């Protein structure tokens, strides 16, 4: 028995959530294998934020590292939740799309290149509104193309979570990995409360928010793949497992009948109890997890 096994796990564990985007991306890659592309010193910043008296960031909140993970060529794209809530603007979106397209190009030319997306994002950057929305549509188009060749793994660690249009990006990924501190949804609780009233969603009800959006629930109901501890090593190992398995037999966002039937069976006369979805939905997901290399 090694010494490590008698030390409680939380003592030796390195928090992933506490890392900035750049450090998160690095923590997943083989040491010494990666290079950052279009990094901060290239200074491609948002032209739209300063016009609105908002300071830009030199990497526009999007970190792109190209290298290997367990020997597999991979591009890791990490959004920085600390800058404009990880929102997608013209530049951050273009960086994502370009990196994904280049991974597709390499994959089509005999060098299979997977993508790992670290999504901490509220979705469209409202200060760049239509270019942000367009960028998300383009990121999705690029993922659809890459996904034919190599897996696209989304990691949502927290604490921002993954919301808005970027939740669709998670939805079309090959795999979604989450921690208990992560949330995933199209509209956050505040937005629902604003648009549909407090009786629809009380955004001060923390327990309800976690019951609906939290990683445990999303994995429990089968719309995300693995629930992980906030531990850099554990998350890195889970990413490696996904890359090793390769493409799923069928992507979750192509299982139309399964989910259409699930929706048809819901009682919509009242709110849906999250726990019932864990019970009724999850066991039907087994197929996605038996991947083919």
């Amino acid at each position, binding site marked *: 028995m090694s010494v490590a096994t008698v030390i409680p796990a939380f003592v030796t564990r390195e928090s992933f959530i506490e890392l900035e985007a750049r450090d998160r991306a690095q923590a997943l890659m083989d040491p010494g294998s990666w290079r950052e592309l279009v*990094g*901060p010193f290239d200074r491609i910043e948002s032209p739209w934020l*300063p016009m609105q008296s908002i*300071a830009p*960031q*030199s990497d526009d909140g999007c970190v792109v590292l190209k290298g290997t993970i367990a020997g597999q060529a991979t591009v890791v794209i990490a959004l920085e939740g600390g800058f404009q809530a990880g929102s997608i603007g013209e530049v951050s979106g273009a960086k994502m799309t370009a990196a994904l397209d280049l991974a597709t190009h390499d994959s089509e030319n005999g060098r299979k290149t997977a993508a790992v997306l670290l999504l901490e994002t509220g979705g469209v950057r409202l200060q760049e509104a239509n270019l942000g929305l367009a960028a998300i549509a383009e990121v999705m188009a690029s993922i659809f193309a890459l996904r034919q060749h190599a897996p696209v793994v989304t990691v949502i660690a927290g604490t921002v979570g993954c919301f808005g249009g970027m939740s669709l990006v998670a939805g079309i990924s090959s795999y979604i990995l989450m921690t208990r501190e992560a949330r995933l949804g199209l509209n956050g609780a505040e937005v629902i409360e604003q648009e549909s009233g407090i009786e629809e969603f009380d955004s001060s009800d923390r327990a309800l928010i976690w019951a609906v959006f939290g990683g445990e629930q999303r994995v429990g109901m089968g719309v995300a793949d693995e629930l992980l501890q906030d531990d850099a090593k554990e998350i890195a190992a889970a990413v490696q497992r996904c890359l090793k398995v390769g493409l799923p037999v069928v992507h979750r966002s192509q299982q139309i009948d399964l989910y259409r039937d699930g929706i048809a069976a819901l009682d919509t006369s009242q709110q849906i109890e999250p726990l019932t979805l864990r019970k009724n939905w999850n066991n039907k997901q087994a197929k996605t997890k038996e991947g083919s290399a």
Partner: protein
Amino acid sequence: MEQLKFDYPSANRWISKRAHVGIVGSGDMEVLMEPAETGSAHVSIQTSVNGFGSSWKAVLDRFFARFDGAVRIHINDAGATPGSVMLRLEQAVEVIEQ
């Protein structure tokens, strides 16, 4: 939005590395520090908080009273306090002097 520029001709020690620290979150800033080929130090600041030119100068004067590297510094600032500014600059120096 305000753009500020400062020069420190006395900072002329050769530097070979570069550093990037910080996030442009509310009350924070990022520093990009890289070798300046001119043999003196140059600072450019882009800040969302207007009217604090003299505070910036005071912090930078203090910083360059101790640091003599010929560096080009760019700062994107979202309202960092003078204390945070100094901390971020020192973090950047730590990286380039490693």
